[in-house]
């Protein structure tokens, strides 16, 4: 949508965002963006209606007929593996009256049947019939009335859906983030698999606060998560852990890596994210370039945000004070449920071909620290909730401008590191809020319908119509 149309439809939101466009150059963000109904409506259209959104993983639906129910914003989608083994992402709504046809969060079925009049669809979305068809719908062309499919693409088994025909393919969209995702998820020949059903819980917070936290807010670990250090839930010193890189990975994607610069690789304290030696010996490093190999060997912890609202995290934690810390992979979706509400989806993953006991230990350690009961995370949600609360209030909305200046004006020690071997603009150490500013600059560009990114480059929109890439 062009800028004028947007401004007409969302006048107040546009005004706030235009103000933010100026202020973010100084590292200032008006708090109002974190709790505003009009901005939220604009986001549903401009962000969630156009970006690739994480839905799940192939390993959640391994068999023909397996399905899971997932969401993009408020719209529900059935992610189903059909009889030919293909994955389909289809709107959970009957074409007759819009009644939802998927009864469960997950299961296995050959057909989805609408409870209202009994229209029946195969698990690939094709309408195959209804009661009293000859009397009721004799000449209906059933080919035209299947479930609505949306675009889907898969990367390392992770299934993404996209509601727009104009958005470039997933791999183009992921940009430099691909390089970092390859390092994490491409290390094992058998790939990764989901360890259990996702945990879902609702938090009264704005989705951007979660996304920016995983984009590169390592600074909060020092204080908010002090209790985790105190009781030894993680082997890292949170101060030492600030040695590391923040990377702008293209199209609003962010990566944050705990990695000491110029260190002697042989002295790495927790090589390969602290994976046990018998597991990291099985890593398939051949697929990596020399630089990736070094990063994988020397980084202690790695996290990031796949713009807009999917995050990943690998770090090493323990489930109790007597057990050795083990690494885990947590994947998130911060599903927006309004300007002041998210549903957090939390999946734990591990390399498929690792011992069962290790997978269980990793799951347990990960969930003990990063989940709704997590030693770390229980404190996170508290802060996101009160910030969202503040953002919705009359006086704060007008007067409270938030400081995102770390790394600017000689505040914060973060500086651009031209020698960073990987793609994307990198900063060292992690005392900076450049990733958050990068996230929000991309966000503003999308919200206001602009065509250049913050570094002046043309956005990778090639003007093509990708509707042909719909699977059916």
């Amino acid at each position, binding site marked *: 949508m062009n800028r004028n149309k947007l401004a007409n439809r969302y006048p107040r939101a546009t005004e706030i965002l235009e103000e933010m466009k100026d202020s973010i150059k100084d590292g200032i963000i008006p708090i109002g963006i974190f709790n505003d109904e009009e901005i939220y409506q604009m986001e549903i259209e401009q962000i969630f209606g156009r970006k690739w959104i994480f839905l799940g993983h192939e390993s959640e639906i391994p068999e023909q007929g397996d399905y899971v129910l997932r969401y993009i914003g408020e719209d529900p989608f059935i992610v189903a593996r059909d009889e030919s083994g293909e994955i389909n992402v289809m709107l959970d709504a009957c074409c007759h009256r819009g009644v939802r046809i998927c009864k469960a969060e997950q299961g296995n079925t050959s057909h989805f049947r609408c409870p209202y009049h009994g229209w029946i669809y195969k698990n690939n979305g094709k309408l195959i019939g209804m009661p009293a068809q000859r009397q009721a719908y004799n000449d209906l062309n059933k080919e035209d009335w299947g479930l609505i499919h949306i675009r889907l693409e898969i990367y390392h088994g992770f299934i993404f859906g996209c509601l727009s025909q104009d958005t470039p393919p997933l791999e183009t969209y992921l940009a430099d983030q691909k390089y970092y995702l390859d390092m994490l998820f491409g290390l094992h020949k058998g790939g990764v698999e989901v360890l259990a059903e996702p945990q879902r*819980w*609702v938090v009264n917070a704005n989705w951007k606060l979660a996304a920016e936290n995983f984009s590169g807010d390592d600074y909060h670990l020092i204080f908010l998560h002090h*209790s*985790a250090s105190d*009781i*030894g*839930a993680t082997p890292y010193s949170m101060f030492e852990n600030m040695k590391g890189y923040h990377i702008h990975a293209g199209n609003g994607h962010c990566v944050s890596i705990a990695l000491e610069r110029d260190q002697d690789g042989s002295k790495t304290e927790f090589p390969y994210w602290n994976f046990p030696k018998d597991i990291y010996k099985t890593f398939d490093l051949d697929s990596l370039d020399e630089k990736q190999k070094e990063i994988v060997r020397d980084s202690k912890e790695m996290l990031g945000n796949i713009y807009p609202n999917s995050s990943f995290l690998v770090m090493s934690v323990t489930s109790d004070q007597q057990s050795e810390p083990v690494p885990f992979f947590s994947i998130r979706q911060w599903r927006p449920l309004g300007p002041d509400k998210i549903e957090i989806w939390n999946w734990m993953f591990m390399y498929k071909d690792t011992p069962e006991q290790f997978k269980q230990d990793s799951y347990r350690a990960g969930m003990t620290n990063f989940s709704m009961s997590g030693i770390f995370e229980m404190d996170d949600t508290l802060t996101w909730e009160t910030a969202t609360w503040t953002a919705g209030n009359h006086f704060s909305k007008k007067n409270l401008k938030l400081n995102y200046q770390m790394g600017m004006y000689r505040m914060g020690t973060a500086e651009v590191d031209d020698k960073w071997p990987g793609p994307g603009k990198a900063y060292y150490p992690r005392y900076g809020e450049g990733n958050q500013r990068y996230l929000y600059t991309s966000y503003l560009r999308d919200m206001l319908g602009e065509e250049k990114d913050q570094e002046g480059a043309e956005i990778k929109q090639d003007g093509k119509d990708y509707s042909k890439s719909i699977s059916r």
Partner: protein
Amino acid sequence: MAKTIQNQLVDKDLLVREGERFLYTEAEILDAGDYQKWLTLLTDDIAYQIPIRTTRERNAHSSFSSQAFHMNENKASLEMRVARVYTDYNFVEDPPSRSRHFLTNFRLVSVDKPNSKCEMVMKCNMLIYRSKFDFVSHDVLSGEREDTLRKEDGRWKLAKRTVYLDHTTMGMSNLAIFL
């Protein structure tokens, strides 16, 4: 013969009363936030589990996961959680939320050797009210608990707890309390 059966029934009733009394006291200690004391009520091999539930069709085996848990704890991990509460950085629960356990519908599932050492499994329904700060809003958790109690040195202790929640998507922003 009839008298013996009656005696057994009385014994069983007494046992259920003992179990109830233990669980009421335990709930009182939890609601008071006296977690150090709570730990002394747990056996060393305690298993404390809250499986994740998903909406499944009626013909599905179970709506409770065998691999996904909100919490899956042993004594050591519960001790770590309690240690966290007493650090200076317990932001989420200091000041503490106000929680109240309501336990009802007690059922004795099984008794192992009622007259010697003794272990019994009891089910009850559980409702937990929780509010915090000066908010009028509150959270409610509903579920069924299956608790295994064991008598050690003449004292009842909790040897296993499984909480079967009536929630799939959880409506609480954190689970920083014990159920």
